[in-house]
């Protein structure tokens, strides 16, 4: 059983224990799949491999955890119909990394428990309005600076905004600086900018 970690281009150093299998000219990084009951440790190990590939390749398309195949032939059969789209994605992320943005805050109303229907609805609307404002004044300027962006749909407070940006590797510092500058406009909220990551959010290829 083998595990697929990523598709790469221009890989300079292959991490220990991994090998390249070429599928119609596309380099897939695989390793032997070792069973692990600890999913968190397995996810961390997978992430470390992908991060080392990001540091050593011109372009990397990470594959989600758990893509195991019986052998290279089965892997090639599964990947072959998508090679063209995978190459396009690989080209789209070339030279870029992912930067993550996370905005958290207690937006609960100071009015306390709602006493009637109207006050309940107003209380529930407050975070949605804040989210819309954040999308306009924080996310939108960053999206304009990025090559691509992905923003997660709003779930519930306190996580007010979670977004990923595809940024040229050489521009990460400036991008993070702008994120922090923009965040200063929101003193009630906590904002973190993390990276550089492999472009997980921009690696999706439709089946």
């Amino acid at each position, binding site marked *: 059983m083998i595990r697929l970690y990523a598709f790469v281009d221009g890989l300079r150093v292959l991490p220990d224990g991994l090998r390249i299998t070429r599928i119609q000219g596309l380099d897939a990084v695989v390793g032997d799949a070792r069973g692990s009951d600890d*999913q*968190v440790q397995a996810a961390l190990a997978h992430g470390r491999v992908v991060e080392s590939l990001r540091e050593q390749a011109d372009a990397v398309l990470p594959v989600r955890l758990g893509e195991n195949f019986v052998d290279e032939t089965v892997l090639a059969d599964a990947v072959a119909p998508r090679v063209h789209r995978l190459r396009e994605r690989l080209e789209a992320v070339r030279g870029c990394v992912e*930067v993550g943005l*996370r905005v*958290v*805050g207690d937006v609960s109303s100071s009015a306390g428990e*709602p006493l*009637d*229907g*109207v*006050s*309940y*609805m107003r209380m*529930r*609307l407050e975070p*949605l*309005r804040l989210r819309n404002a954040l999308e306009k004044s924080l996310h939108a300027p960053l999206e304009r600076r990025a090559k691509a962006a992905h923003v*997660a*749909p*709003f*779930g*519930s407070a*306190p*996580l007010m905004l*979670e977004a990923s940006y595809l940024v040229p590797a050489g521009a*990460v*510092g400036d991008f*993070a*600086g702008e*994120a*922090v500058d923009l*965040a*200063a406009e*929101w*003193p009630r*909220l*906590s*904002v*973190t*900018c*993390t*990276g*550089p*990551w492999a472009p997980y959010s921009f690696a999706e290829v439709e089946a």
Partner: protein
Amino acid sequence: MSDDPVLTKLLGSTGDLDGVARSAGGAVNAFPSRIGADPESVERGLAQLVLTLVELLRQLMERQALRRMDEGVLTDDEIERMGETFMKLAERMDELKTEFGLEDEDLNLQLGPLGSLL
């Protein structure tokens, strides 16, 4: 440079970094959980499944109503009636969660590209 893998990835931050870290704690629970099917816990497992679905529908309806309220297409009476209904539903959900020993996180669903339910 720090050896902490989290701090080495921190490009910048404002506010309460610990609060952000706490909000990310759910990432370790991102793997799908299973409904307990053994005789002792089957009732709680089924309640968890049913309440999760009810919570999903409740949130969808409430979000739609809030959107319409924000667009200004609801009258004050409609807002009051809807708000009272959603408030009572939320209270009843809390009672049922307590009855079956469930926490908010037990009713969470990973909805793929739509994010998480709670």
